[in-house]
């Protein structure tokens, strides 16, 4: 019978088991610090990676001579530069 389950006893065991829980444990602090490092690192990564992409594309466009037609297809077939990140657009990959 479901109403005969020892819910309180089980709750204590589960609360004690939760990974790095429930509070103020060394594990919680370590996970918090690691999470913050990931958060800050990913923002730095976004800045760095996007800057690379934008500078490369701008350089390519300048080197092509003249400016592209606004919103136009870039010169040549396929991507105008080797992809620096993101999923491949080649269905064969």
């Amino acid at each position: 019978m479901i109403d005969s389950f020892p819910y309180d006893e089980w709750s204590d065991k589960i609360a004690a088991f939760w990974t790095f829980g429930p509070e103020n444990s060394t594990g919680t602090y370590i996970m918090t610090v690691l999470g913050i490092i990931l958060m800050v690192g990913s923002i730095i990564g976004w800045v760095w990676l996007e800057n690379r992409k934008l500078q490369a594309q701008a350089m390519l466009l300048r080197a092509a001579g003249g400016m592209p037609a606004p919103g136009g297809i870039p010169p040549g077939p396929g991507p105008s530069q080797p992809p620096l990140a993101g999923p491949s657009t080649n269905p064969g990959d």
Partner: protein
Amino acid sequence: MASMLASFTSLLAQAPSLEEVNAKVDLDSQVLLEVFYFFTVVVMWLIHVGFMAYEAGAARRKNVMSTAIKNILTIAVVTPSFYYFGWYIYGCFEPGGPAQGHAGPEQFPGFCGQTAPWAAEMGPDLQNHLNAVFFLAFLLFSWTTGSIMSGAVIERIRLSAYLILTVLLGSAVWIMDAAWGWSSGGWLVTNYGFHDSIASLVVHGVAGAFTLGVLLNLGPRIGKYDMLGKARTFRGHNTHLTLMGLMLIFTGFYGFYAACLFITSTSFPGWLNIYGSPTTLGAIAFVITIGFAGGFTGGWFASKGDPFWTLSGGLAGVISVSAGADVYHPSLAYLLSFTGGLVAVWSGTWIERKLRIDDAVGAVAVHGVCGFYGVFLVGIFAGGYPTGLNNVESSFGGQLMGMMAFLPLAFIPGYVAAWLLKKFNLLRVPAEVELEGLDMAEFQQDFFPEFERVPEGIVLPDGEEVESAPILLEDFARVTNGNRPGTRVPG
């Protein structure tokens, strides 16, 4: 007879005591609130689906994905930053600065300590049914502030710059103002009776003011203004998508409104607003629904039937009556939201044409101006209403105090952060990339490969639509020569 009496006594002995019944009812009440908040969060996701569709539709074809990805990555950056420090700001900054230790406000002892990321309430906790879902509802409000800015800056801001700015707005600036003026213990509430029950100013107005600071540094899109500083109009690539996005935002707003109330029937006899003042879910549902009606009407007439501004007028109408949604009569809300629709269109036009600020979706007008307007209206139409646990009467002066506190709180960080990014050349994409379209640089692909490209159009100040290429190339030359587009040329 003796046997019946024995059975009855036995049944009585098995019956739970009054304390046990009370404990069960209390638990049920908490679980009900937990379920309620959970589903407000689900409904509020639609706001973000809507913002993505709205902005992607307003972007030109060459910028579709770079626009949409901003809304998605808002979730990626604001969620952890709000978890690690945003919620702590809400819990601990109600007196203005950091509270002493983890003391928290008197009204809710210990709330400050419950908001630190290592607190029991910020992890799995079988004894607490409220903190986690309450946190989540606020997190969704935080995403909304980022999404409000997101639309204004499309087609020229760097994705990474936007992400930095949205962390600042979503996890620090807006939640600081919420601690001050959108909590029962906030200093503006306890001292001045500041009343903004469904967040006209604390979410919308503040996001709009922050956005204005960003736009002043970001500058207009290439081709937006002619040599005389007159505004041209870019055609979004899919107006239907934009309108559908707005309708999704409206749907999500019902979740947003509902999440601004709470009920625990074992502690209070009925629904309370964020300040702990009584209201009902029905009262605010009345106001939001008729607010859309008034806003659509005002937007339609002020814009002479423009579809974008008609729908934006609906949003503006609701924002204009949100601050007093718990106390307004529906007819009053109808009238005020109509004026909100007018204000949004007129101020949006003024910002674009007179201030020459290129706000791609009118966010500063719709959210910023109407957010402040909504709080201003409460000072007039709900003055004397007892607000918060101290029952301080709302007043025009108290509302002005809130506006004066929140304008610099929002505008200055937006302006300074954008200025710094600009100084490090990290705010705006290179002009060549902007001209070609951001999607090629960011993703190396066209996201409508099955459709033939047609020449991009632009609407001149006199209303004539022409091919944009010559105009954009001319403006590009001015930009690369150091002349900012939109600069008035003498003579």
